[in-house]
Structures are given as C-alpha cells and as structure tokens.
C-alpha cells in the first residue's frame, strides 16, 4: 500500500505547494490534526499556526505559516488546503512580522476607546503575525 499521497496548498496568491507527501500536520480549531494516506473524507476549518509537511523518503519537514483556511480530504482528489494567507517558512520576513505584531497589539488595546478601529481585522492581523513568527522560529530555532 503506498504511503504517499498528493497534497496541494493553495492561497489567493496561487498554488504554494503541489507534491507527493507522506504526512501533513495542520492547526485546526481545537488542536492539531495529522493527515496520512487513506485518511477518511474530511472537511475541516483551519486555525492559525504552522503547517508541517513531510515528503516521502526524507526526514526533512517543510513548514508553512497558516492563518486560517479550509482543508479538504477525499479519496478521488488530492488533499487540498485552501489557505487564507500563508507562505513558506523560508519566505517569512521576521522583522515585518514583529512590527505588525506590535501594531496589531497596540490597535487591539486601543479598540475599547476608539470606535473607528476594526477589532476583527486587528485580531486577524495579530494572528497572522504570530503564525509567521511561530513558523519562522520552528524553521530556524
């Protein structure tokens, strides 16, 4: 029985990853989810964090930052991850993520006083920044 399966990671900015893999670990709303070949059909909402992909015949893990999205597992099609926003760990700009984390925290702190601040967007920005930092630190400890 083959242990590899096809995985596609798609963002609004195009196809990020499209290869055979052995294992993928994803952040879901109540923890972490691991998918291997022959997983039962599943649709899941993703939370923020990092996605770890292991390709066949190698111990090396490819990391992606993830800030929410949807996962689709079925028998007929490649396992598909539709990411709201995400990138390869190697492409993350840590400095920028830190700056936007600061900015988002400041905005959230201000939101109770200032009506013009969109709390939903500020929270999303913070999650994005945290996901990037976490992924970067996992990749380059």
């Amino acid at each position, binding site marked *: 029985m083959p242990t590899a399966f096809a995985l596609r990671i798609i963002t609004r900015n195009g196809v990020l990853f499209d290869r055979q893999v052995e294992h993928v670990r994803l952040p879901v709303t109540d923890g972490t989810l691991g998918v291997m070949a022959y997983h039962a059909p599943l*649709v899941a*909402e993703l939370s923020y964090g990092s996605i770890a992909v292991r390709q066949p015949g190698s111990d090396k893990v490819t990391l992606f930052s993830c800030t929410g999205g949807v996962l689709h597992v*079925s028998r007929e099609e490649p396992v598909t991850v539709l990411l709201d926003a995400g990138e390869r760990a190697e492409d993350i700009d840590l400095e920028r993520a830190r700056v936007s984390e600061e900015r988002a925290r400041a905005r959230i702190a201000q939101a109770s006083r200032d009506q013009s601040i969109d709390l939903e967007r500020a929270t999303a920005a913070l999650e994005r920044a945290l996901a990037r930092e976490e992924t970067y630190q996992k990749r380059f400890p």
Partner: protein
Amino acid sequence: MPEDLRTIRRKIRTTTSVSQITRAMKMVSAARLRRTQQLVEKSRPYWEGIRRLVRYVAGSSDGLKHPLLSAEEPTNAALILVAGDRGLCGSYNSLVFRRALQALHELPVKVNMLVGVGQRVAAWAKTVGLPLYDLFPAYGGQASDQTYLTVARAVRSYLSQGLCDGVYAVYAPYVSSLQNIPDCRRLVPMECDEIPGREQVQYLFEPDPAELLDALLVRAVEVEVSQVVIEGAASEQAARVAAMTAASDNADEMMEELVRLRNRIRQQQITTEILEIVSGADAITAE
C-alpha cells in the same frame, strides 16, 4: 487644394504628439494588464477550489441548510457593478452599463442596493437616476488583491446585517486580452447543485457541520466578490490597451495622409514658381 502649407504642418505636429501620448498610455496599460492578469491567474485556483468545496459540502450534508445556499431566488438583492475609474478604454464602460440596465430589467428579483466599483459608475448612476448604495474605487488596475478584498468584506457585512439576501454582479470576465464581454452572474446564493457523476461522500466535519459551513461560506463570498473585481480590472486594462492601440494606429494612418498632402502642396508651389519664372523668361525672349 485650398489648405495652405502652414495649417498642414501644424496638423502634422498635433498628430505626432497625440500618437506619442496614446502610445505612452498603451505602454502603461499594457504593464497594468500584465499585473492584473497575474492576479487573475493566481487567484483562480483558490476560487475554483472554494467553489468546488461548497458544492461537495452542500451535496453531502443532508439537512444542512444555510441562507447563503438556498436554491430559491433571493427576495432582496444587491447588484455589484464593476466598471473603470476613467474613460479612454473604448466601449468597456458603456458595455458594462448597457448590460447592467438589461440585468435590472431581466433579474427575477428586486434589486434594492446598487454597489459600484469604479468612479464611472457614480457618473452613470447619476445620469440614469439610480441611487448608489456604496462606491469603491477600481484603482485603475494598480491595487493588490488585498484592496479588492475591501469590496468583498463590505458585501459580506451587507449580508450579515441582513441588508440583502442575494448578490449579483455585472462585470466583464477576463477571458483573453481581446475578449471581455460583460456578463451578469449570481454570486449569492451559491450554486449548490450536485456535480453529475460524483458519488456522494460522507464527510467528517471539523468542528461541527454548521460551524464549518459558516466558515466556508464566509470565504466563498469573499473570494467570489474579489474575483469579480479582479477580473473586471483585468478586462478594463485589456480594453484600454486595445483602445490605445487602435488610436495609435489611426494616428499613424492620419500622419501618412497628411505627409502626402504636404508633399503634394509643396510640389505644387514649386511648380507654380517655376512656371512663373519660365513664362517670365519666355516673355522676355519673345520681345
């Protein structure tokens, strides 16, 4: 030929500078076309993925109902009109508006909200006397996908506030750089008819089906709307490239005619002058 040489020379100068301008505009919009074209191509896999997933989930989960998925026509619809910020793009804007008027007559529902993308929509709505609920700039093909998401977020909030229960869009889908005919499409409620030939799959849902459907449809609405805006922007740039190419070609043709005319008149003048001299000389020898 009654026109004198000086007028023609001036016309030649004008035509030259016009063709320089149109050529420059063509280059600018060609660059923007490439950018927006890339946006369209990059976002299509995501868009298609979400659309397919909506259909899978709607088809497999019996008894799952969602207002954004109902098969019935909505009662209270919003119409998004995607045109340009500026003119000089051939018939692009007017074709969109013509299609919009047609859609307003044909749609089986009452359109209560008109949402415009592109400054031209405001001017048009004023002339035809339709109130515009909201207006977004089209950014002339310079915006990123994030800016187009602002339109999508606004539409999402209309839906969640209950201002409308259906969304239609009149826009020009980007097919190729030569073909972009405006069309009217229903974005919400989404198509959820089953895909023929596909076996029903019993999915696991994480977290629970209702929450998942919510999460999925929020994304679906966003991507549907932003895709419409991005494709419209690409079509606008394509139309502008075509219009500016035609204008440059016309200017070239006009130049050719004007130069020919100028040469003929100049030749005529010379001939007349020579004739005068020769006939003068003849008159002297005859004496």
